[in-house]
């Protein structure tokens, strides 16, 4: 920490973000305009909120591939419940609160299921979440009967401010994202929970022999992630007012990529939430810049993101060997 040598794993992501900002600003003057900035941030918020939860899961040596389809399933469920409660509750705050409660409860249960299978029964996280990923995706397709589930029009108009509205010109998704990040950063850095996650990810035997409640901490990481998926969905549904089998597609990969770009180790043992935020911003800025300029086709977005992920891991490896 006190070493004067610059650590590439710390500076790297920040540097990449700055380069992207400079590049974006020089290519298109409207890049730094308030509207574009808030737009980018609001779109990043869903992945970002999920990625903060994912940071804890990965730090504790786990992985969750199911978050994208979990979000789609929760969105579908939320819309169904709200639509069917409409005749009795009518358009108003109670029905929105009901929808939110359903989303949080569904996230909690889904996270619990993943977590229990992984931490209590000791099944590989990759396998469990690969399975649940398929299950949720198929469930939402079934709920929507292969098509799209749409929120009642009146309800949608009422609910929309949760995505588009905000405080002092900052939209709700951005505010919630910021809150999640602040709480997450503090939890990772200076609570026993964060320390225990890192210990378990480093060596779960050592954690066990140090009287850490290994299974409980692991379970908690998946539950927290599930809840955050619920939160992200609450903010996402008012944006389009619908859910389809394509909702949340590849979110899991974007979230995992953001975590890794941010300097959290994929094999566990070390994580940082602020890094994840930078990772999320880098990924969405690339897309944004490609859309604003016509230097490179936006279709190459995925290729550039992929290259950056590999680069991030190479940079991390170099510093670790140098230590």
């Amino acid at each position, binding site marked *: 920490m006190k070493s004067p040598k610059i650590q590439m794993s710390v500076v790297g992501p920040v540097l990449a973000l700055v380069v992207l900002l400079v590049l974006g600003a020089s290519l298109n003057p409207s890049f730094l305009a308030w509207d574009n900035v808030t737009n980018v941030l609001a779109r990043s918020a869903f992945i970002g909120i999920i990625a903060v939860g994912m940071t804890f899961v990965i730090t504790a040596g786990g992985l969750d591939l199911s978050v994208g389809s979990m979000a789609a399933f929760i969105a579908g469920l939320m819309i169904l419940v709200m639509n069917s409660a409409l005749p009795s509750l009518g358009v108003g705050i109670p029905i929105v609160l009901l929808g939110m409660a359903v989303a949080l409860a569904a996230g909690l249960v889904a996270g619990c299921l993943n977590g229990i299978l992984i931490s209590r029964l000791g099944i590989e996280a990759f396998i469990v979440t690969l399975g649940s990923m398929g299950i949720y995706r198929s469930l939402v397709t079934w709920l929507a009967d292969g098509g799209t589930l749409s929120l009642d029009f009146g309800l949608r108009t009422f609910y929309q401010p949760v995505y588009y509205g905000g405080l002092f010109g900052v939209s709700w998704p951005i505010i919630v994202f910021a809150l999640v990040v602040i709480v997450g950063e503090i939890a990772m850095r200076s609570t026993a929970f964060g320390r225990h996650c890192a210990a378990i990810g480093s060596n779960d*035997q050592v954690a066990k022999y140090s009287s850490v409640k290994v299974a409980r901490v692991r379970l908690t990481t998946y539950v927290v992630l599930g809840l955050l998926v619920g939160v992200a969905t609450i903010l996402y549904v008012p944006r389009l007012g619908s859910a389809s089998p394509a909702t949340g597609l590849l979110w899991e990969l974007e979230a995992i990529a953001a975590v890794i770009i941010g300097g959290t180790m994929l094999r566990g043992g070390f994580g940082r939430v602020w890094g994840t935020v930078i990772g999320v911003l880098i990924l969405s800025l690339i897309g944004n810049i490609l859309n604003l300029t016509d230097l490179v086709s936006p279709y190459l977005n995925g290729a550039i993101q992929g290259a950056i992920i590999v680069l991030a891991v190479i940079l991390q490896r170099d510093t670790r060997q140098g230590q």
Partner: protein
Amino acid sequence: MSEPVLALDGVSRSFGPIEVLHGVSLALRPGRVHALIGENGAGKSTAMKILAGYQPPTSGTVRLDGAPTAFASIGEAEARGISMIHQEFNLAEQLTVEQNIFLGRELKRGLLLDKPAMRARTRELLDLLDCHVATDRKVSGLSNSDKQMTEIAKALLRETRVLIMDEPTAVLTSAETAVLMRQVRALRERGAAILFTSHKLDEVKGIADDLTIMRDGAVVWSGDASEKDEHAMASAMVGREMRDLYPAKGPAPGEVVLEVSGLNVPGHAEDISFTLRRGEILGVAGLIGSGRTETFEGLCGLRAATGEVRVKGRPVTIRHPWEALDLGLCYLTEDRKTRGLLLRKGMRENLTLQALDRFTHGLIDTTAEEAALDKAVREFDIRGSRAVRVGNLSGGNQQKLLFAKTMLSEPEIVVIDEPTRGVDIGTKQQMYGFIRGLATEGRAIVVISSEMQEVIGLADRVLVMRRGRVAGELAGAAASEDAIVRLAMGVLPAEETVA
């Protein structure tokens, strides 16, 4: 005297800004066993790694057959006949014994592996070492001593001119050590140069021809081993007169705090019963594999176990380690590398891991953590830079940190498994004093140890285990080396019963 095969000439080595070796010179001659001794963190392992080409020196020269050499890789050093056995195991855990021994130099017939030939050669080498482990066993399932024998067999396979062994006997029983020493003598006969280190000075006395003593990264004495007896070695290492390794025994112990009856640990131990009193040190002796570790892991909720346990008279069920800790019962592992410490983390995170709730008031109080680390470093004399990861501390200092970590949660009943493995003699004395101090404070202590002298010197009472059962209990003067060995091996004390 013959010319040295391999030598260090004024070698220094730094890690970052810290210099840990200062102008060390050391010469290995064919047909001689050279012992390198020194306190924990003195730089023995570092000097050995430089000799074997694992690390380059920062300044100074490594000479092979008199000519300055810089090994480009470990492979190059090996190709020139230099093998090293590390302090910590260097085996691929998921591979079998024979795959490990032939790793990187597999025998082939055409394109395919010649498995029968490798198996036969492995068997031959292991038989030479009196090691009866199956050659197709996975290394991860082996006992520490079998792992060590695999390491040694691996080194013997290479045509060795120079064999460097870093604390090879730390995990071996005395019988296994004797087997190893026989092999070392055979290698010496064949003209190999051997360098080894050990904190067991009787071994050093028994086999070394040449002796080098290091302190704080510099050589303080070098010469013919016959010139120093064990006592003089210890004093030169520590830099002060060494006497009274073991503290005086304490006053009569207090009331019973732990009662165990009929403890079963499936597959490892059966029907274990004993009591432990406040202020008492109970030694647990037995051969490796007699189920000592497993018994106490079972007791502390680290593995499945059944049986009756009473803590301070109250019947308790312990299914998880934290439940044991809540009852003031704590187990300190013998395996610091894979169960004791987070090697990639710093000292502070390791120190407070078990007692983190003491430093947490909503958020972790890092200032208090640092203060606790200051105190632990002082109290246990932990040497090494705080900036390094724990994996880079010397072995003995890792052990001291592990000790400090366990004591931070202030358990009333502590089970300490192999407390001084890899610890130098000066620190041993400190740790014995500390363990006795804990007992005097009113804690109850169990010390599991494979070092007979340690059990006898430290414990008030000795429990001897054999094949997963309690073979007997010895107290006071009855706890002699002879009596313990008889119980541990299952030999009846013939003369005494007749008389």
